[in-house]
């Protein structure tokens, strides 16, 4: 027995020695990478015409699994499209002749906050990411932003609308989305014109983002003279909305505003339809903005959402000229065509958000004429541009540094077109609306 044990231990020791020997080049790999510029500089000395090439590593996590999977994958698809386009176009050329190209380093965060913190630390300390993009969702971004801020790494936050992270003295975060507190303002404005007597129920997911939206929504509703007859939160993993719907019906509400993310929003919609809740108008966060929402069929008809961007109401160069803003990047049609060619799908605002995260960084590097983080930070702070996504401008006050102040949202609603197909149509603001809002929603 002892002999067997000895043989086993010897084998283990031998195996570990072999493994560590095999492992050494891998651990030394980053050193080789850091020495790469020296190698690229050498030919420059002998052949001055060869431009130096810098590869900027952008780090982020994506939710390949878990509750944020649907929207997160779209965001990453948008970002990847941007990176492919910019690299294929030869990268960014700086005035000193350096060509900046981009590479990404990413991990699956499993929609898990703890994993996000661990992975962003790894992205910064082990993968030496130069810039960061946020994960999808406010909750995961809040976790990642702590790590980014501690390490002074610039993070473009896409897919994260909650306001709080920008009001705690952070200086490395730059938000792309309209803040959560302003998310449903356009919807309320629309409702005011449609039915000022509407009785409103606010039913929302109990997470950072949805709570931030409601915190901004309720006072605005009351200031516009609406009666809020029900305010209710639900857990993120709720699947049975029966009791909530009963409460909703009992409250006498005619309009429902709320929701959270895709899984709960799609479930809620289906059950509202099955139970014939009889609401005149429903606006939910996030879920109706995804093309997958149309799988709900008739249950989706009339359900609206606040959208960060819609292809049918994409922003244009003419709009930028009227506003006196600098236009930057491709047109909405070009962006959508490129995305459709790559994936066969039409882009949602989550895709556009991912693309914009890269585009904003590209613009900042061009404006800074450098990849030095401090110069890029200054360029981001000074940014005031207009793109197919709309305006991009960041708050630079210490009270809300990095908060998005240049971007406005639209209201989109699922309606049936003349062919009877479900399509998401922009219904507000009136000047960009494609069709009038469907109000009240026809009874099932």
């Amino acid at each position, binding site marked *: 027995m002892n002999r067997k044990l000895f043989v086993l231990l010897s084998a283990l020791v031998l195996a570990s020695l072999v493994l560590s020997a095999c492992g050494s080049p891998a651990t030394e790999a980053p050193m080789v990478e850091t020495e790469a510029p020296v190698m690229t500089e050498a030919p420059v000395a002998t052949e001055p015409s060869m431009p130096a090439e810098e590869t900027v590593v952008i780090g982020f996590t994506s939710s390949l699994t878990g509750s944020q999977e649907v929207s997160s994958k779209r965001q990453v698809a948008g970002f990847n499209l941007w990176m492919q386009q910019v690299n294929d176009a030869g990268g960014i050329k700086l005035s000193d002749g350096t060509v900046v190209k981009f590479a990404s380093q990413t991990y699956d965060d499993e929609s898990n906050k703890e994993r996000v913190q661990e992975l962003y630390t790894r992205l910064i300390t082990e993968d030496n990411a130069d810039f960061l993009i946020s994960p999808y969702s406010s909750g995961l971004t809040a976790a990642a932003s702590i790590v980014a801020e501690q390490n002074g790494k610039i993070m473009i936050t896409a897919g994260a609308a909650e306001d709080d992270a920008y009001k705690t003295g952070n200086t490395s975060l730059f938000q792309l989305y309209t803040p959560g507190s302003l998310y449903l303002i356009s919807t309320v404005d629309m409702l005011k014109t449609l039915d000022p007597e509407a009785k409103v129920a606010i039913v929302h997911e109990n997470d950072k983002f949805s709570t931030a939206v409601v915190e901004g929504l309720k006072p605005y509703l009351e200031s516009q003279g609406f009666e809020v007859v029900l305010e209710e939160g639900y857990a993120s993993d709720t699947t049975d909305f029966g009791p909530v719907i*009963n409460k909703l019906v009992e409250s006498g509400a005619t309009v429902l505003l709320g929701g959270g993310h895709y899984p709960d929003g799609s479930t809620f919609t289906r059950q509202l339809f*099955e139970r014939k809740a009889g609401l005149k108008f429903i606006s939910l966060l996030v879920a109706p903005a995804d093309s997958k929402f149309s799988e709900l069929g008739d249950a989706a008809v009339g359900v609206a959402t606040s959208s960060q961007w819609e292809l049918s109401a994409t922003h244009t160069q003419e709009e930028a000229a009227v506003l006196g803003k600098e236009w930057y990047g491709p047109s909405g049609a070009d962006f959508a065509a490129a995305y459709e060619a790559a994936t066969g799908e039409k882009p949602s605002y989550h895709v556009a958000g991912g693309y914009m995260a890269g585009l904003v960084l590209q613009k900042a590097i061009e404006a800074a004429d450098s990849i030095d983080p401090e110069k890029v930070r200054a360029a981001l702070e000074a940014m005031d541009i207009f793109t197919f996504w709309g305006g991009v401008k960041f708050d630079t006050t210490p009270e809300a540094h990095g908060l998005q102040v240049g971007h406005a949202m639209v209201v989109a609603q699922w309606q049936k077109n003349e062919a009877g197909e479900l399509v998401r149509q922009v219904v507000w603001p009136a000047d960009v609306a494609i069709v009038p809002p469907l109000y009240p929603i026809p009874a099932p």
Partner: protein
Amino acid sequence: MQQIGLLLASLPDGILLGFVYGLAAMGLTLIWGVMNVINLSHGPIIALGMFSTFFVFSRLGLNPYVGLIPVAIVGLLLGVLIYAVAVHRVINAPHLSSLLATFSVNMIIIGLGTAALTTSPYNVDFSAGSFKLGSTTLLGTRLIAALITMLFTGALYLFLYRTRPGKYIRAVANNRAAAELMGIPSTRILALSFGLGTMLAMVSGALIATFFPFSILAGSGYEMKSFVIGVLGGLGNPIGALFGGMILGVLEGIIPAFLETSWVPVIEFALFVVILLVRPTGLFGAKK
């Protein structure tokens, strides 16, 4: 007054849902009762049941209830396979071994499921109509699910009390050593019991999929509910599990009438702890 109306509206819904929770818990508690194994692969097996409905309805175009028979057979065979591969060798080992073994099965199913099906939510767009009962709307899918649960419970009861293999199962649950001395093939009976528990979990998942969306990760919530129900009804007592399920369903229906919905899990698990402390054998008594 408004809250009483709300209570009456939510009560039937809660009871109907509770039946299906009870069926899921029955699978867990049967395995515990017969072989003292806490089956941590219960959740993903429920999720597999959900996906079976998805494939039967969305891919094969069949009525989801027609698919329940093959789902039950597959569940039984899957359970026997899990028993043979992961549980049999640790059946007499300390509880930690069987916990780890079934947890491993849990991780394998979730891993394979995630690779094959992703964790995106799936939806079975099936409707069996709805009708008004007073101030509440009852969904046909829930009503049918409750009826099927009653059928399965009745069939299980008849199987355990009126058939020879059923009597063997009860004998093994009661005293395995004595049952073996009487010539009962305990290994086969244990495998059959594990198969039956897995079958009940898969059927409950198949029924849940007709009214809730799901992903491969969705079973964990129902697994947790099954633990609460098991403790409520008495671990190892399948009929107690059905009543435990109904109690949980009713609680889920009526708590939101008075409190925010997010309080439901808080109260459920507080009840779990209270029952464990005050009446560890459950409200309906654990297996003797």
